[in-house]
C-alpha cells in the first residue's frame, strides 16, 4: 500500500487476527470447509471447548493440522495440495461423495477468500477474466451453491488500496447472492437485504475508516452505534 495510512489503520488486523476473529463465530459441532489460502488459518484458532469437523473437498472429513515433517504422507493432502493429518473420527470418500456433501447442503459453513464481494452477496474469487489468465475454478462454485452459510475472509482492499467490497463485482462471478458475512483486516461486515452493514471494527478503527475503504454504501449497525 503506497498511500500514507492514518494512525488507526497502522493497527489493522494481521491475517492471524482475522482468522482468530472468524473462528469465534463457528459454533461447536459445526461441519466446515475452509478455502485455500488465508481461510485455512482459521483452523488454528477454534476456541477451546468447541469441536468442529473440517471437510476438504478432495475426500476427507475430519481433517487435522499439518503433520510434522517426518510424518508427511503425500497421499494425505488437503484441497490446497498441502500435507495434512486425519483426526479421530475422520473418514475418506471419493470425489462424487465429497461433493454430494457440499452440494447437498450438509456443511454448516464455508469461509472463502475473495477478489470482490458485492453488496448483494455476489462473490468473485476464481478468475480475473483477463485474456491471458489460465482458467481454473476448482470447487469454489460448488461450495457457494451448496454450503448453508458462506462467509469470506479477505483483506479489506487490494495491495494498491482498491476496495474489495463493491457495489457490483467487476470480475466473473463465482456465485450470485451467496456471501452473508465478511471478515477483513478492518472490520466484520454483514451482507443484508439493505447492503453492507458494519457489525464490528478492529480495535482503533472507526466507522469512517471502514466506509472510506468500502466501495459501496455501508450502514453502521454496531451495538455501540445504536446506543
Amino acid at each position: 500500500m503506497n498511500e500514507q495510512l492514518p494512525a488507526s489503520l497502522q493497527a489493522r488486523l494481521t491475517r492471524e487476527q482475522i482468522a482468530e476473529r472468524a473462528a469465534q463465530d463457528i459454533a461447536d459441532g459445526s461441519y466446515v470447509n475452509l478455502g485455500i489460502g488465508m481461510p485455512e488459518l482459521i483452523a488454528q484458532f477454534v476456541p477451546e471447548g468447541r469441536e468442529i469437523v473440517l471437510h476438504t473437498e478432495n475426500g476427507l472429513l475430519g481433517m487435522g493440522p499439518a503433520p510434522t515433517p517426518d510424518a508427511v504422507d503425500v497421499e494425505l493432502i488437503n484441497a490446497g495440495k498441502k500435507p495434512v493429518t486425519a483426526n479421530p473420527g475422520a473418514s475418506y470418500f471419493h470425489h462424487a461423495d465429497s461433493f454430494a456433501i457440499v452440494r447437498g447442503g450438509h456443511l454448516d459453513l464455508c469461509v472463502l477468500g475473495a477478489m470482490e464481494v458485492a453488496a448483494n452477496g455476489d462473490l468473485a474469487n476464481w478468475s480475473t477474466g483477463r485474456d491471458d489468465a489460465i482458467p481454473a475454478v476448482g470447487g469454489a462454485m460448488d461450495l457457494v451453491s451448496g454450503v448453508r452459510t458462506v462467509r469470506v475472509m479477505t483483506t479489506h482492499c487490494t495491495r494498491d488500496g482498491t476496495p474489495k467490497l463493491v457495489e457490483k463485482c467487476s470480475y466473473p462471478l463465482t456465485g450470485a447472492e451467496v456471501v452473508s458475512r465478511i471478515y477483513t483486516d478492518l472490520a466484520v461486515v454483514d451482507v443484508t437485504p439493505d447492503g453492507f452493514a458494519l457489525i464490528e471494527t478492529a480495535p482503533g478503527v472507526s466507522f469512517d475508516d471502514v466506509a472510506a475503504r468500502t466501495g459501496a454504501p455501508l450502514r453502521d449497525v454496531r451495538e455501540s452505534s445504536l446506543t
Partner: protein
Amino acid sequence: MIDKRAASAAAAVAAVDDGATVMIGGFGEAGSPIELVHALIDQGASELTVISNNAGNGQVGLAALIRCGRVAKIIGSYPRSSNSTVFTDFYRAGRIELELVPQGTLAERIRAGGAGIPAFYTPTGAATELADGKEQREFHGRPHLLEHALTADWALIKARAADWHGNLLYSKTARNFGPIMAMAAETTVVQASSVDAPGALDPETIVTPGIFVDRVVHVPDPAQEFELVAHGAHYP
C-alpha cells in the same frame, strides 16, 4: 464436543411430527431398524409418508406402523410380498396411498436428494405405464424420463457399528438403503449394535461419514425382522 448418542430410541424419535416424511431402511427383512420403528409407533405420529423399498412384513416394524393407521402414503418399489398382508389389506381398503417407483430409480432419487441434485434423467421405465405423467426426453437416441429427488424429514436406519460422530459401518446386504437415506433426510437416526468413541472405526472403511447422521441409538442386540416374522410376533 460432538456426541450424537441419544439416550434411547424413544428420545431419538420424540420430535417426529404428524404428517412427516420418514425414510425407513431395509430390503426385505435385512436392515430393518425394528427398534426405531417400534419407538415411532409408541411415539404416536400419524399421517406419515414413508419411503421404503418394501411395505413391511408380518405384524412388526413397518407393517405394524401401517396396521396402527399411522401411514398415509408409501413410496416404494415392492410393497407386495408373501408376508406383507397388512399393506395389502390397507391398500385394498383404500386406506393407504402408494407411489410405485422402480427400485433403481427409487435409490437414485434418494441419492439425488442427499447430493443436491434436484432432478435427473433415466432410461428406466420409459415406454411403460410408470412413465405416465412424466417428462420424456431423448438422449443418445433413447427415451429417458425426468425423475425428481426424494428427501425426507427423518431417516430411520440400522448399522452394525457407529461412533459418537455418527460414522457408520453396515452388515453385508443389510447395508442396502441405509447410506443413501442417511444423506437425504433432515434428521437421520441410526440404531447400531456397537457405538464407540471416535477413532474406533478405520477411516478408510467408513461407509457413511458422520456428517449425514444426527442421532445414534445403541441397540446392542437388535431383533431381526426375519425371526420376528417367522415366530409370528406382534407389535405393540
